[in-house]
């Protein structure tokens, strides 16, 4: 059979291409531009080739930031995903209380990032904050401006407080889509609570959980505002994650070349991880077939 060739469809894509060009490609090109040149102001540029990339690749500072970043993302995923599932499982399935729960769960998601940061910044202060003051008086050394562990704990707890709801809501949606017959069949088969979770709930939640993990990973990998407000990246460089480091480099030290190279590598890492996720997810779907 002959397939008719029709190029008109490109016209339909044109507006999107233009939009993407303005919103993504052009700013990105600026960064690319900086990343391969050196400048000393006065709008004078010198060709630097891949020098900045090379420098960045051998920069201990960047590797440290990347390490901290990966550790942070891993920790919050390890806490938020199981916790979110647990919360979703314990939420009522229907009725008045289900709606109340949903509203309560949605609340933290509605608070702006910097407000969250400010809340925890004050909450954790040893002089006036409820948390910090209480802990300090209980004899537990807690001062996030000085102790590395306290700083990390604060940033992590803050993120968990802010974002576990998102995982919980997504998992809840997944659970809601399971027909009652599955639970009835499980009762008849005398399946344990764990088996019900393992063989019914988890497989049915798989799709939404992948989305939750992807969203939480991307978001945590790019985290900036909250730790910036709470710890400012300290004590020392202990909570200086990639974004914070990048801003320090670009705006604090005005090292535009290295910062641009850093940005591009940062972007590529995120793109790579996205691609891996996408491939894994589509493979899973393929394996599942049409059902």
């Amino acid at each position, binding site marked *: *059979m*002959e*397939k*008719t060739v029709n190029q008109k469809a490109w016209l339909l894509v044109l507006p999107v291409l233009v939009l993407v060009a303005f919103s993504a490609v052009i700013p990105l090109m600026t960064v690319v531009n900086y990343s391969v040149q050196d400048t000393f102001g006065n709008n004078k540029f010198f060709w630097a080739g891949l020098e900045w990339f090379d420098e960045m690749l051998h920069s201990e500072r960047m590797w440290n930031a990347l390490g901290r970043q990966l550790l942070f993302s891993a920790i919050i995923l390890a806490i938020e995903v199981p916790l979110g599932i647990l919360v979703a499982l314990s939420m009522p399935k229907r009725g008045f209380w289900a709606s109340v729960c949903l509203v309560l769960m949605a609340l933290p998601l509605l608070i702006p990032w910097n407000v969250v940061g400010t809340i925890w910044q004050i909450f954790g202060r040893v002089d006036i904050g409820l948390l910090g003051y209480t802990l300090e008086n209980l004899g537990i050394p807690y001062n996030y401006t000085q102790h590395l562990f306290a700083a990390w704990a604060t940033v992590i707890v803050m993120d968990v407080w802010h974002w576990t709801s998102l995982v919980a809501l997504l998992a809840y949606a997944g659970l809601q889509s399971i027909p009652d017959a599955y639970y009835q069949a499980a009762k008849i088969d005398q399946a344990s609570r764990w088996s019900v979770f393992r063989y019914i709930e988890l497989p049915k939640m798989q799709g939404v959980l992948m989305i939750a993990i992807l969203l939480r990973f991307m978001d945590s990998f790019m985290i900036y505002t909250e730790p910036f407000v709470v710890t400012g990246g300290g004590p020392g460089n202990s909570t200086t994650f990639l974004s914070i480091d990048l801003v320090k480099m670009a705006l604090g030290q005005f090292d535009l070349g290295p910062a641009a190279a850093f940005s591009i590598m940062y972007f590529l890492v995120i793109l790579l991880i996205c691609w891996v996720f996408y491939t894994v997810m589509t493979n899973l779907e393929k394996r599942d077939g049409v059902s």
Partner: protein
Amino acid sequence: MALVLDGISKVTGAQTHIHPTSLELHKGTMNVLLGPTLSGKTSLMRLMAGLDKPSSGRLLWHGEDVTGMRVQDRKVAMVYQQFINYPSMTVYENIASPLRLMGMSAAEIDSSVKATADLMKLTPMLSRKPLELSGGQQQRCALARALVKNAGLVLLDEPLANLDYKLREELRVEIPKIFEESGAIFVYATTEPEEALLLGGNTATLWEGRITQFGPTPEVYRKPIDATTARVFSDPPMNFLSISKTGNKLLFGDGQSVAAAGKLRELADGRYVAGFRPNHVEVVRHTADAMKFTALLNVTEITGSETFIHLAHHGEKWVGLIHGVHDLELGQPIDVYLDPSHVYIFAEDGKLVVPAAYAMAA
């Protein structure tokens, strides 16, 4: 002249949903698309409606090429298996909604809605919301919405599949009546042969994205052009048996041979497949010519007035539908009888060679 499909096909990637199909549907006819799930009924309907663009071929509406035209610009109505209504609107508003979109005057809308509601027996429920109605009433509401538009083409995709058996039976009787009054082209998809027969009109049998036969419903039923059509249009499924012809005799296995009569005489020697419908199997010798087969009786099912017998005959599974309630011993051989006039002869590739004599007389 009305709706013409001219070599229409639908291919996505490596998958062919509809092989090139040509079909002519006339004004004021009921056309049934009969085939199992995934045989292409819905794909074909979407092509007819203009919801999908064909990969090849043309779609003509009253002689005008409407191949690329959007569904919104054509007068098409569609009813689905799921009861699709606007839940927040009353039945009256649901029925009126397509007319409001057309910009009709309030008085015209009112009279059309009332006439359609009357036809669909919805008059007492006009002020209720769809979800307060029974399944049958909800589907009537969806049907009313399709009919009120006065569309030239009404597509019904298994509209009764989600209803109770008895409700289905009632609507099956009503739909042909409604259709007779509308004068539109009706296309009705179903998986059930019985439904096709009750609706009458024309039937197109579908198998793996191909229309195997199209014609007046009883004719397709009685004179299927191949074994596939016969299988699709038979519930319980048609029974098959390998036979051979030597000289002027047909050998039916079990030492049965029948003198080749009529058209069978011209048949070349060789192997064929005999097909016969379950309702033509008997457990008593009913005609002088009847052939006798001994088969193993596996299961009987009693419908109250009839008995289904499930037989195994040399590795072939047969079903018989016999009159009356019979208490037969299971797991035992049983003699069953078949009149040669009820037998279709197919070539080994499935093409019909000689139709059953009774069907030619009918």
